[in-house]
């Protein structure tokens, strides 16, 4: 049952993104920014928590979950440490994902990246 909800809710987040791409010609970067900020807002309002409880990874894997995590981290840090928590809580909660992305990207660039300018390829995310 959990997998069904993960599939349905996660799929819905992606379908909404596709609607935005097809109908508004929003660039992938704008979609991702919109999703993260929406996640922060929904997390702050307490709306996202029930979706996470229902759909598990279906809510945490889409980028809105990243925003939700930022909000959750800030809430915890502000409650424990006061105002300074608004500066520390967000990155603390997302540190693993961000650092992993950067480190794995660096390794991928070393291993798979082409140093040869003549064979440069364009990849989907950068294309639009």
């Amino acid at each position, binding site marked *: 049952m*959990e*997998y069904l909800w*993960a*599939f349905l*809710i*996660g*799929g*819905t*987040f*992606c*379908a909404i*993104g*596709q*609607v*935005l*791409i*097809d109908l508004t010609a929003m660039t992938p970067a704008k979609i*991702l*920014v919109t999703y*993260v900020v929406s996640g*922060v807002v929904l*997390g*702050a309002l307490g709306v996202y928590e029930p979706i996470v409880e229902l*759909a*598990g*990874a*279906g809510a*945490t*894997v*889409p*980028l809105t*979950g990243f925003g939700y995590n*930022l*909000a959750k981290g*800030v*809430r915890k840090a502000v409650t424990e440490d006061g105002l300074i*928590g*608004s*500066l520390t809580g*967000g*990155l603390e909660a997302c540190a*693993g994902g*961000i650092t*992993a*992305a950067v480190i*794995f*990207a*660096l*390794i*991928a*660039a070393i291993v*798979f*990246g*082409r140093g040869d300018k003549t064979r*440069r390829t*364009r*990849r*989907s*995310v950068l294309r*639009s």
Partner: protein
Amino acid sequence: MKLTESEYGKLAKRRAPGTKLYKTIPMAFLVGGLICCVGQAILDLYKSLGITADMAGTLTSVSLVFLSAVLTGFGLYDKIAKHAGAGTLVPITGFANAVVSPAMEFKTEGYVLGVGAKIFIIAGPVIVYGLAASALYGIILFAMQAG
């Protein structure tokens, strides 16, 4: 290839009528849903090992980022993305792809201003506005708790 705003607009318009919504949206739904199910399976695996919920969540993100980096490295993620659109963009694997792709792409421009700088070409804005929104929330929350 560098595009100005208006050139991009023209290209987008030219491409837009060809987009088949009845195809792209279900594909995004299907692939995005499946990626989330993979995430759920990884999450359940970590939880079954007795790892706390928070740490299992972080490990799941890291695992998905790793998988995405490998698939992107071999050029497979972009092949899936061609058909899945937002289905591969919106999950955290898409975020990872947006970090790994430019890192590989801009190796031609060196490790500092190529890989090092361009690694954040899409992740940068995401982090900037995500952090800004969360910091703003923190200030509002603090004011509410104090008041």
